[in-house]
């Protein structure tokens, strides 16, 4: 096998970089525009959008741990109608394709959000965030039930004129089985994967700082877990895999591409380094020379 190329193809479009800004770490692009950090950004995944406004979880929403970061943002967003007016059609013209992340509390919500987004010319694709809790099944994530993921994908495929990736959760079920269900339902790609459930407890008091207690955990130390999942999923499905999780160095990007990813998302590294895409690309390019 030869080393991976940094030129990629996704859904009929050619990119000179594999790097996508991960959902929830890039807003809707407004802040990146202020800092002008678009170099080597292939695409941007927005914050997750729901049908109705969500104010998000009570603070504190962020806690750093010894080797990573817990977040409990709670899908804060003003609802799809406001998002389309204020964020997507409104202020900023982002110089790269926009992938809008879609979330929901019940199965019907995903395709209803996509129906509204179809009225805007701006999105290039969607990312379906099935990691949120399914209230109807006692709070387990939709992504833990392959049949639910297949139904959601089918409903989105029916109303969408655009490609969409399903963002898988590592927290329940067999990810390969869920990936196949998403593909069967008509998904155009898979994002592997969302954050891992984590919790930090004060051993003196038995309490947690984050009110919801359990939160999403991100860390560069999770890279091998993501590499394994990207490898398992990509050799099973025939649709492209977008790797997400653990990327902090150019070498990590190359490793995920070698494991079978078509594109690589960058999340908490972007929070720390607004020019993460440019920096990671340069590091990867140097390694390839």
């Amino acid at each position, binding site marked *: 096998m030869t080393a991976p190329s940094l030129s990629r193809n996704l859904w009929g479009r050619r990119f000179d970089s594999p790097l996508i800004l991960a959902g929830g770490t890039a*807003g809707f692009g407004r802040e990146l525009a202020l800092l002008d950090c678009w170099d080597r950004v292939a695409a941007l995944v927005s914050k997750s959008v729901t049908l109705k406004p969500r104010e998000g979880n009570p*603070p504190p929403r*962020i806690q750093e741990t010894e080797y990573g970061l817990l977040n409990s943002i709670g899908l804060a967003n003003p609802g799809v109608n406001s998002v389309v007016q204020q964020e997507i059609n409104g202020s900023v013209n982002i110089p790269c394709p926009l992938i809008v992340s879609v979330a929901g509390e019940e199965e019907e919500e995903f395709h209803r959000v996509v129906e509204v987004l179809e009225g805007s010319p701006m999105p290039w694709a969607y990312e379906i965030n099935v990691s949120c809790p399914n209230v109807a099944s006692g709070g387990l994530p939709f992504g833990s039930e392959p049949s639910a993921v297949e139904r959601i994908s089918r409903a989105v495929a029916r109303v969408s004129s655009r490609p969409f990736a399903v963002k898988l959760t590592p927290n329940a079920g067999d990810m390969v089985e869920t990936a196949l269900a998403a593909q069967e339902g008509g998904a155009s790609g898979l994002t592997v994967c969302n954050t891992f459930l984590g919790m930090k407890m004060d051993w003196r008091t038995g309490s947690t700082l984050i009110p919801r207690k359990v939160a999403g955990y991100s860390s560069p130390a999770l890279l091998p877990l993501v590499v394994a999942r990207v490898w398992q999923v990509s050799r099973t499905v025939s649709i492209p895999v977008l790797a997400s999780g653990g990327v902090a160095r150019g070498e990590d990007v190359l490793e995920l591409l070698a494991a079978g990813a078509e594109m690589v998302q960058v999340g908490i590294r972007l929070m720390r380094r*607004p020019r993460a895409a440019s920096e990671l690309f340069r590091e990867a390019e140097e390694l390839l020379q």
Partner: protein
Amino acid sequence: MNRILPDDFIAETASVRRIRPGIVCMTFSAPGFRSLPGQFLEIEVSPGPFPVTRRPFTVNRLLPEGFEILFDLRGRGTELLSSLSPGSPVRVLGPLGNGWRLGPGKWLLVGGGMGCAGFSFLAGELEEPPTVLMGASTADRLLPFDDGDLRVITEDGSSGPRGRVTDLLPGIEPGDYRVVAVCGPVPMMRGVWLSLPPGHRRRVQVSAESRMGCGWGVCGGCAVPAAGGGYVKCCSDGPVFAGDELDWDRWTV
């Protein structure tokens, strides 16, 4: 707009001093750096992967060719930062957020503990020297300030009267001040807000504090309860807010 837009740049550590037990003052060389008082910086405390986020610091003072920060040693991040030697390069994102809404007239600055960092910078930008009420747990924890009418109070009485900074408010006529600028722990800021007669609360600006993820508005981690429901982002909507923009009943952390 009361903000200067940020850049991600490399500064050079110029000096590291323990000015009080547990309180560190660091200066950095960064030619051309500009900031408004109230804006802050996100500093990488280690070039390695951990900790995964930067640490936020208010700009304590601008220097001719750089800036100064003041902080409490209270964890791994601040320990790492304070162990740097002069000459060490440090990655800095800033200045971030908005600054105090500067304007004419007499200002009253009310600060608790490390919340008084940046007061000298702010005072230097005002048209007349402010009155400053400064509270701390002990005399050791009072920050330096020498540009106005300073009144101090400590919880143990080791400097000034014994008490909290809100205990100095009865000696103040709020109507004498155009702006009441407040910074410190949330309970202290709430105490100041509640102590002021409602008719004078429109004068209040607060510099909020919250646990931050990114510091530049993308993650939504630093939510502060907003008046009328929902949240504002401390890092990019603030950190300076008018007192009546916040929901003081819900703001507990």
